[in-house]
């Protein structure tokens, strides 16, 4: 009887209470090693080429790929760090805090540029700018906005067109949305004015990029703010319906990062996977992997990425977060 209770208790986190995964796939199920459990915020379809390439070199390995939102990743991983081998997320701040809190394994002898890794435990492998994605139809006959300022003017000029048809992350739910919002707010006052304008248009808030891009593609919304352009491009089949705008006023560029859990059940496989991930360069003609690779950072012309440094912890502070969210809600949610 007692054993039965214990069994139920043990299974609880796996079944009942846990939220379902956005996606959950086992690659190479017939393999003998592993499984390597990868907790990721990147859609399976987008990430599959990397996994396949790794598996073609390590055919005996089984990979379990689990997709969920960035904030949920943080929650789940902190709840049970022993259950996962690799954590891949676009929320740099949450990832950095995981590494800072000693939850990431320090890999020795990984040669990766200094700016693209932190403490030999957190490794960046893409650099992806936040963009404004618009549905072309809504802008037919009107100039395409080039910056946030342009967007504010466009929205103000035609409120009837955009009423209820603008969207961005719900920063209270999305880790990446919160990162972009805080970095924008740090960079310029424009962010708050944009939020006020979008708020006045009864903006839609999304937990995850997927839903937002889908809504944009089918015309439910006309403007999505702070979406990863590359991600949108990868997800939307008909490329002509949308246009991806890199705001010219100031850039906010995120690096997708990976870490090996300090308590990984498969530390060696996890380490070799992360090594593969950061050294993977798409071969010529092998453009399946649609996330933009890291660009040489040190030439000053590139759009600056959010640096991997302890300052990322600032907005994760409970008091700071409460204050920021209060301000954000003030701006966005208007009576």
């Amino acid at each position, binding site marked *: 009887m007692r054993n039965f209770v214990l069994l139920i208790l043990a299974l609880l986190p796996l079944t009942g209470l846990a939220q379902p995964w956005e996606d959950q796939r086992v690659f190479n199920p017939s393999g003998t090693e592993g499984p390597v459990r990868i907790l990721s915020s990147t859609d399976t379809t987008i990430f599959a080429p990397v996994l396949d390439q790794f598996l073609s070199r390590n055919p005996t390995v089984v990979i379990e790929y689990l997709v969920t939102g960035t904030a949920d990743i943080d929650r789940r991983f902190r709840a049970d760090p022993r259950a996962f081998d690799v954590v891949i997320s676009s929320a740099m701040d949450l990832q950095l805090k995981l590494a800072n809190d000693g939850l990431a394994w320090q890999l020795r002898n990984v040669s990766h540029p200094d700016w693209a890794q*932190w403490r030999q435990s957190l490794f960046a492998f893409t650099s992806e700018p936040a963009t404004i994605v618009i549905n072309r139809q809504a802008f037919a006959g009107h100039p395409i906005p080039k910056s946030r300022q342009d967007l504010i003017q466009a929205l103000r000029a035609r409120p009837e067109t955009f009423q209820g048809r603008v969207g961005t992350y719900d920063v209270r739910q999305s880790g990446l949305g919160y990162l972009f919002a805080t970095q924008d707010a740090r960079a310029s006052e424009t962010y708050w004015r944009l939020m006020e304008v979008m708020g006045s248009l009864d903006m839609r808030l999304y937990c995850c990029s997927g839903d937002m891009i889908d809504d944009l593609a089918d015309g439910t919304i006309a403007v999505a703010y702070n979406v990863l352009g590359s991600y949108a491009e990868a997800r939307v089949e008909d490329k002509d319906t949308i246009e991806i705008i890199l705001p010219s006023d100031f850039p906010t560029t995120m690096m997708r990062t990976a870490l090996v859990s300090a308590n990984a059940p498969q530390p060696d496989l996890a380490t070799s996977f992360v090594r593969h991930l950061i050294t993977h360069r798409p071969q010529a003609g092998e453009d399946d992997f649609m996330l933009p690779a890291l660009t040489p950072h040190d030439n000053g012309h590139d759009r600056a990425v959010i640096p991997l440094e302890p*300052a990322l912890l600032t907005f994760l502070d409970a008091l700071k977060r409460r204050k920021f969210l209060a301000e954000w809600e003030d701006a966005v949610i208007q009576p």
Partner: protein
Amino acid sequence: MTARPPVSGSLRNRLVLTLIGGAAVLTVLLFFTVRNYATQIAQQGQDNILGASAAAILDSASIRDGQIDVDIPYSAFSMLATPSDDCVFYAIYQDDVFLSGYKALVPERGASDRGGVYKTATFEGMEVRLVTVSRTLIGAEQRRQLHVVLAQTQDALSETLDQISRNAALLGVGFFSLAVLLSVWATSTTIGPLKRLADSVTRRGPQDLSPFAKPVPSEMVPLVSSLNSLMGRLDQSLGQSEDFIAEAAHRVRTPLATVRSYAEATLQRVDREENRNAVRSMIRAIDESSRAASQLLDHAMITFRADHLDRQTIDLGELVGELVTRLTPLAEMKDLELNLRAEKGVVCSGDPILIQNAVRNLIDNALKYSPSESSVDIVIAAEPRPHVCISDQGPGFPPDEVGKLAARFARGRNAEGTIGSGLGLTIAEDVATAHGGELTLSNLAGGGACVTLSF
């Protein structure tokens, strides 16, 4: 030549070891001083940044609507970025109530508005440097104490320290090698004058007892001046004894010669046979004494000179030839013939006065102990060693006494009736020994003595 004095250690080694030992101690001291100092500075650097960062957080606090509001500035954590990506932990407490950050981080007691408290501690298994700062916030009707604890791992610091240690070690090694070179050099320059003095003493000829005039370091002045005074005294006493010998010879021989001439004169005037015999015995005794005196003095002179051998390069043929010329009249008086057969250019190194004296004694013996109308052969040859060989046609040495004849005052049976003191062969042998050579006595197969003096 002279016995080696007992050795106790070496000045050079002692000096080198002391200097190198000193340098080693200094090096270790230098290493630790530099490292400690650098560690302090590096630690101070980290503390300053931590302090500034914590102060920035503290500064951002305010009381709004009776609630404490802390708005951590982005720069506060930004300034904590290090090349080694050190971890950062913080906690904010209001009075004793935890507000935000890492709950496991507890503020240190003792922080006040005036200054923070720094401490090295372990947090979550990592060594961290920790600062606690605090500030009193005054609101509408309450005062609140706000504490900020900020901790940072020390990876960058320890990397810096490793580097500093490596550099300090390099510095130490450099310093030490330089010190070793310097001490070896310093030692040899210090020992140098001593060695030069020893060399110049060794190089001096036996007669050179003049004082040392070359300048020496002041520490060596006592040594050199006592050496000089010792040599002065030696020179003086040597001079005195040489003078004494000459003086003594003179003092003994002159009165003896006078007595002898009186005795000769008396012999002319005395007619009675028994008186004449008595005077003859007297003259003979006088001759014996005179001979003994002069041989004794020669022997003394030879002993003295042999101690301070004054070596020169000598042509044996020339030297002996001169002697033979001088002795020829004496030989003719006895109807003896002196035959000199000398190889050309037989050279040896030695004291000419001693060698001449030895050879003269040997020729003297040959003249004395061989019958008249015979001849004495003097042969000089270079092989196997430079030697002078004197042979006569007399009776030769009494075979049973040959081994003892070179002893002092030893005379053979055949010498009865001949005037002599028994020192001639002693002198010749002493001279041979002083030159590292030897004197050999033998009899010729066809009769006659054969004496070889080799060098």
